């Protein structure tokens, strides 16, 4: 199997798997969604809230804020040597205290150590009018996407077969109907020949096949080559998320092997 990054940014990856099978890539996809740990706010103690939003809504909004996750420094709280009471190796504390008139942003969450500072500081949590107050303490811990969506690192993950477009130049009369029909602007007629531009952008909709009266074009997906793309919410980079997912899959298979 070969892996190639077609595009890689901090929070976005588009990956080509070659010489593989859908069930294999799907296992990676599901691990990315459900099994990678990340940090999120789990317990909120509210001391004062005179804003228009209920305590529960504020706690919910806090939970959804992506926090930077240094996996090497943290354990799951349940498995921690402190016995689940909460200690520096399983729990991160934040405080927030603000008085109106203002908008409370995610950047107002003050961590105990600057390395846990919220990455995206511009997420509005609530608006306060004059004399309204919000004072609270929050505890963040590790969790996985299987238990709650706030612990899901990736979003919008999906994969598709690599498109293959075959043009029969003998049958094709260069009428241009397929060029017109293609929603992704993949086809063009250039120097009296029908040619293909960026083939990865093809969505396998087959509109070109339907438009062609001569049966000269055929499109299908190659299930041995798969393009996967996903974003992360910023708690882990796209590359680290993939590495972590592969590590987890590997561990699971090892456990299975031991049982057998």
């Amino acid at each position, binding site marked *: 199997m070969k892996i190639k990054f077609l595009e890689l940014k901090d929070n976005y990856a588009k990956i080509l798997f070659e010489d593989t099978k859908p069930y294999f890539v799907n296992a990676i996809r599901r691990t990315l969604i459900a099994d990678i740990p990340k940090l999120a706010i789990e317990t909120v103690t509210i001391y004062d809230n005179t804003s228009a939003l209920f305590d529960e809504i504020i706690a919910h909004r806090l939970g959804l804020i992506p926090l930077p996750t240094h996996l090497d420094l943290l354990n799951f709280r349940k498995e921690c040597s402190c016995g689940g009471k909460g200690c520096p190796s399983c729990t991160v504390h934040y405080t927030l205290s603000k008085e109106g008139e203002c908008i409370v942003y995610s950047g107002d969450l003050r961590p105990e150590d600057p390395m846990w500072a919220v990455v995206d500081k511009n997420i509005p949590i609530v608006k306060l009018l004059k004399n309204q107050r919000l004072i609270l303490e929050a505890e963040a811990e590790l969790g996985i996407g299987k238990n709650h969506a706030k612990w899901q690192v990736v979003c919008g993950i999906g994969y598709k077969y690599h498109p293959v477009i075959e043009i029969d130049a003998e049958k094709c009369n260069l009428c241009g109907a397929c060029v017109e029909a293609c929603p992704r602007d993949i086809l063009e007629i250039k120097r009296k020949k029908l040619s293909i531009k960026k083939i990865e952008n093809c969505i396998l909709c087959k509109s070109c096949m339907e438009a062609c009266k001569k049966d000269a074009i055929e499109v299908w997906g190659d299930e041995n080559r798969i393009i996967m793309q996903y974003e992360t919410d*910023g708690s882990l980079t796209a590359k680290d998320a993939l590495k972590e997912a592969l590590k987890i899959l590997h561990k699971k298979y090892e456990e299975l092997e031991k049982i057998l």
Partner: protein
Amino acid sequence: MIMPIRCFTCGKVLASLFEEYKKRVYIEGEEPKKVLDDLGIRRYCCRRTIISHPVFMKDGEVKELIDEAAQYE
């Protein structure tokens, strides 16, 4: 009420992008399609969440329901 932090469907963080969207679309009158593309919002679930979030204009400012509700503690 107030912009949801994430897309209901896919979980992408949208609340921080909405500030810029509000300014460019509702005040400066830019085309929503262009602003969404610029902000890197590619999926239609996220685009739906943003364009369907209710706002109204008052005193030349873009207001959300929270601005009205905030008066009642």
